[in-house]
């Protein structure tokens, strides 16, 4: 990997982190009046996977999709405006944090029903084959998705028709406050996908270079007609399931576990690694931080000065 590429990965992760931290701070003002699921701590997966995609490749996300959307190139202004319920939001205020879309960036949509977008991504891959279009489809989902029937129905169909899709399982071990061990027997998720008949991988979801390396290989194989690819990546959700805060006081996970999770920060880890070959990394990071601060300030200004939709608007657009 070239230094430029490495810095781009670092910058992309840092950007998502700082954006979500800014959202978390201003969420307390109660003007972003919608449920919000932050991906702080999990940024390496979205960034590593999307780094290997082109604009025409399509991505679907889930309820925790800010990172997916931003990594694929979704508009920050339209995201923040959406959270504030403005007409200029990516859904005109109809969706909020749990429904993001940016067609120009190839981000086809995110929704909060667990497993809801998985078959849609398969359908997009199916259409690419039927229309003879050279693009791959990517879908992000959590470990909880493996308890949903639609996940297995989607894997089955993708394998049957050898579709160009990459399934990305972000395994953070929690569904809301319920640990994986209370929901699934001891087994390896990616091996289930393998049993459905596809090439499957697993890796450290907090190591952005590893994510990129696996995703690059998977995307390449899918693009060359080798059928669906499945990647399970292990990561950690830092904050509460839904909302801006840490929720360590609830004691649903141990202090030691939380401490280990935070220590495993993908940004800290990657910065430390880069520092070995780039002694000036500190200056680069400072430059990124300044750029991101300005971009965030602009996005909040945009949202807060945007027109608001009316009840009248809500009654339109039910049908195409």
């Amino acid at each position: 990997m070239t230094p430029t590429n490495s810095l781009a990965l670092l910058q992309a992760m840092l950007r998502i982190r700082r954006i979500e931290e800014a959202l978390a701070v201003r969420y307390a003002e109660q003007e972003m009046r919608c449920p919000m699921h932050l991906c702080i701590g999990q940024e390496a997966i979205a960034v590593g996977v999307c780094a290997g995609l082109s604009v025409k490749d399509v991505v679907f996300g889930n309820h925790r999709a800010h990172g997916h959307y931003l990594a694929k190139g979704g508009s920050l202004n339209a995201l923040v405006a959406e959270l504030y319920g403005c007409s200029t939001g990516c859904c005109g205020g109809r969706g909020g944090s749990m429904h993001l879309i940016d067609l120009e960036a190839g981000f086809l949509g995110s929704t909060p029903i667990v497993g809801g977008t998985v078959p849609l991504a398969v359908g997009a891959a199916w259409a690419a084959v039927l229309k003879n279009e050279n693009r791959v489809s990517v879908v992000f989902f959590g470990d909880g998705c493996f308890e949903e029937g639609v996940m297995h129905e989607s894997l089955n169909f993708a394998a049957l028709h050898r579709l160009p899709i990459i399934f990305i399982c972000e395994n953070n071990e929690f569904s809301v406050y319920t640990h994986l061990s209370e929901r699934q027997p001891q087994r390896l998720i990616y091996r289930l996908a393998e049993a459905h008949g596809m090439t499957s991988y697993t890796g450290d979801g907090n190591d952005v270079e590893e994510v990129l390396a696996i995703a690059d290989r998977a995307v390449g194989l899918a693009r060359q007609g080798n059928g669906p690819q499945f990647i399970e990546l292990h990561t950690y959700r830092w904050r509460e399931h839904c909302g801006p805060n840490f929720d360590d006081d609830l004691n649903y996970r141990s202090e030691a576990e939380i401490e280990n999770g935070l220590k495993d920060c993908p940004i800290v880890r990657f910065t430390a690694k880069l520092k070995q070959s780039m002694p000036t990394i500190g200056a680069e990071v400072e430059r990124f931080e300044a750029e991101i601060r300005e971009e965030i300030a602009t996005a909040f200004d945009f949202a807060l000065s945007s027109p608001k939709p009316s009840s009248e608007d809500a009654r339109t657009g039910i049908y195409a």
Partner: protein
Amino acid sequence: MLDSGKRTLSYAQAVREGMDQAMERDPNVIVIGEGVPDPKMIFNTTAGLREKYGAKRVFDMPLAENGVTGICIGAALSGMRPVMVHQRIDFALLAMDQLVNNAAKWHYMFDGKASVPLVIRMIVGRGWGQGPQHSQSLQSIFAQVPGLKVVMPATAYDAKGMLMAAIEDDNPVIFIEHRWLHHVTDVVPEEEYRVPLDRAKVLHRGNDVTVAAFSHMTMEALQAARALGSQSVGVEVIDMRSVRPLDVGTVAESVRKTGRLLVADTAFKTGSIAAELISQIAEREFASLKSAPKRVASPDHPTPTSHFMADEYYPEPITIADAVLELAGIEQNGIDYPRLQRELCRDRPLDIPNRNFSGPF
């Protein structure tokens, strides 16, 4: 309705022809469903399509109703126009998440940035012991959801025209066929045509009672109307055709003339679309009503399998005629009731549409 000299097709043949012409016109139209290319070809409604359009447009499917519905939605978002088929509407219940949360909402929740041009054909079963899970008529469940369109053509002419219109529509359309309509014939033009998805149609004129009927009940209502008409009881039969949107205007216009409304539905009575239609007429046309509206519908219990229990389950043409007489305040001794019975009461067995019908159900 038959006009001699013009071509007639059965409803099933009309569906097949509509499908064929839609596929011929637009290469993005694909069809998928359990049994679509199998030897029975969804009661012959998909006959010959795989031979003509190939395996890349005509698909059988894994037994994964919810997943494949989502896959069809994803394909529809990506430029295809999928037509999905369920041999029984009951199977579609497995797909409610994708239908209600995704198909119906996508256009609205993403502010019109994308839409889901998807048709889902669902067939209502009846007879030969189809029983609790193979003969439900669930239109009101789908019709409750904004973002879905729901149609139930009753004639072969409308089946072809509404299917073509549904496939060209940019929204998800639930296209409900009643199995007992598949063999019913009508004049069906060979050329392409479309029938709007939001208009009821008056099929029989009359001044005394309005009967608004859905799907197969339209055929039952027409029989009742003809028999009563020959005894000077004027029944106006409206084939509702669409369930969502519901063409209340056409019914209101008729009720302003007759003052009496009977709604004949194929579904369970409680929470039915018949109930909705009566609510809306009561709100809009209360002053025109000379008597309380009535419903003829299936009873509020699951469909039994044994024909000994099922024989009286379904409303028959005579059930409709009786309800019309009650609404019009006509006593049985005020007309030639035995003649009405002779004309409208079917001979047993009642669990087949007619004596020539030998299945499949």
